[in-house]
């Protein structure tokens, strides 16, 4: 089985996100980087598919040269090959990103054969466009479903589960297939020391990205105003319990 997982380098979740004074970008001076959380799970899913069914996993990203770090992180978890589509300057818009990734996949498949499964994160943590994986799948004329939280292989088809309001929706998809994966599909492993060492030796293939600009243009970024809230301190330690239960009665939560 040949599996491709596409990831994006983003500021590590958890930190406060500040904007540069010109409003054009996130101030990354004091930030660490990671891949988007959904994609960490997509990488884990790719590694598990290869562990269970054989074959090889490849990781691909379109991003700055520094995204080498995220590719090697994926390699440290067991991904075999890495591809970087290097760009300079600000993020590409979703249409342009999808065109470049679609073209790169076509070029890779022409040499190495088709990927049975291509995984994306459901959406990137930072720009949240909710579309690159779908655009790539459409360009490759492959089925695609987003929001996937379960994958099982049954012969030439893949059974995928998606969380919905009423429960889990089930899809039976023929391979080759593209999936947008959501966090919760698995619990990503941590790299081993051996994996870290091996990842340093993985050759990262560079594919210069192509693609015309799309119709969405970022003008400026800002943080929404914080709601000014003066926190009412109900007390310290277990002695505050009575004040908490008073509040629950007042709010009608404790009937």
């Amino acid at each position, binding site marked *: 089985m040949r599996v491709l997982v596409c990831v994006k380098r983003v500021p590590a979740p958890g930190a406060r996100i500040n904007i540069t004074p010109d409003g054009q970008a996130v101030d990354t001076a004091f930030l660490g980087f990671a891949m988007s959380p959904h994609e960490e799970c997509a990488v884990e899913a790719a590694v598990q598919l290869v562990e269970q069914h054989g074959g090889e996993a490849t990781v691909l990203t379109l991003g700055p040269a520094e995204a080498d770090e995220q590719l090697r992180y994926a390699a440290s978890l067991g991904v075999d090959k890495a591809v970087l589509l290097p760009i300079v300057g600000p993020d590409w818009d979703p249409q342009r990103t999808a065109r470049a990734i679609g073209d790169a996949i076509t070029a890779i498949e022409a040499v190495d054969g088709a990927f049975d499964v291509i995984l994306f994160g459901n959406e990137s943590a930072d720009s949240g466009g909710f579309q690159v994986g779908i655009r790539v799948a459409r360009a490759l004329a492959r089925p695609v479903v987003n929001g996937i939280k379960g994958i099982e292989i049954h012969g030439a088809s893949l059974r995928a589960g998606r969380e919905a309001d009423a429960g889990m929706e089930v899809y039976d998809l023929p391979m080759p297939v593209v999936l947008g994966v959501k966090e919760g599909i698995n619990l990503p492993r941590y790299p081993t020391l051996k994996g870290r060492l091996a990842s340093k030796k993985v050759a990262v293939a560079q594919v210069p990205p192509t693609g015309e600009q799309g119709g969405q243009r970022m003008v400026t970024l800002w*943080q929404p105003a914080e709601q000014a809230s003066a926190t009412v301190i109900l007390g310290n330690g277990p002695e505050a319990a009575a004040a908490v239960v008073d509040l629950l009665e007042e709010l009608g939560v404790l009937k």
Partner: protein
Amino acid sequence: MNVLVIVEHDRGTLSPATLEAVAAARQIGSVHAATMGTAADALVEQLAAHGVSVVHQVHHDLLGDYGPEAWGEAAAQLISSLSPDAVVATGTDRGNEVLAHIGAILDAPMVANCTEIEAADGPWRLVRTRWGGSLLERCELTATIKLLTVAHHAVEASEAPASARTVGFSPVLDPSLARSIVVDRVERAAGVTLATAPVVIGGGRGVGSPEGFAPLEELAGLLGGVVGCSRAVTNNGWRNHTDQVGQTGTRIAPDIYFACGISGAIQHWVGAMASKKILAINTDSEANMVTRADYAVIGDLHKVVPAIVAEVRRRRP
């Protein structure tokens, strides 16, 4: 201007979120709506009550249940025949997914999760959310037909009674699109879910272990609520991801959210901020969660939560 709203429904049951897109569309111009499948034909009255003037009822054998490819293809064909100025859906899982398919088929840009829409003759100026709503972006959208989704909860649904006429539309769908239609459903066990619970007792890294959640479970049980958790907790394998509150988990909106031992990273906050009241329990009075909460108890959750449980039991024996 003419705006087409893609109606989200599940086998004929309207998703209330769709009415937010209808309300946003009314601000732009005359509102048409597209319903997929015969099961949705009965939605005309509900849509008319919210100001939809024309309902395009899209019928095809492949539209019996949800399938992102079939819905996208059918909608794209309708759009090509109508040439509306804009196509709008609410930024739910399905809304964003179907609009992305339409964008891919028409090779047109699609802007997800808008909070402000300034329609114009040239490029439209939009405000959209990033990082799950903790960052905002102003962007310009240049396209013949503007495709966008409205961030869920950014616009309130409101009634605006109109009389709607219906028009049928029969798309030509390739049988191969059956490949991505829902084939089965595993219904969730009945009961309170995290997204709809009136009380959520959330635990973070400070809970320390899977067993540490026992008092939180007990308090949730007493208050008719459920337990939630932060990403740190699921990453440690202490609880299932279905309990996770936040940008990549569930967005909650209870009457009260207890945030126990949760520092309050922005990605957690965006999932919890729709709570009517937030009570933080934390040893650190400077924690983000404490400074943003409505109420706080400064102390060790392992002592405070059992004390609250005991007090509730004393008053409601």
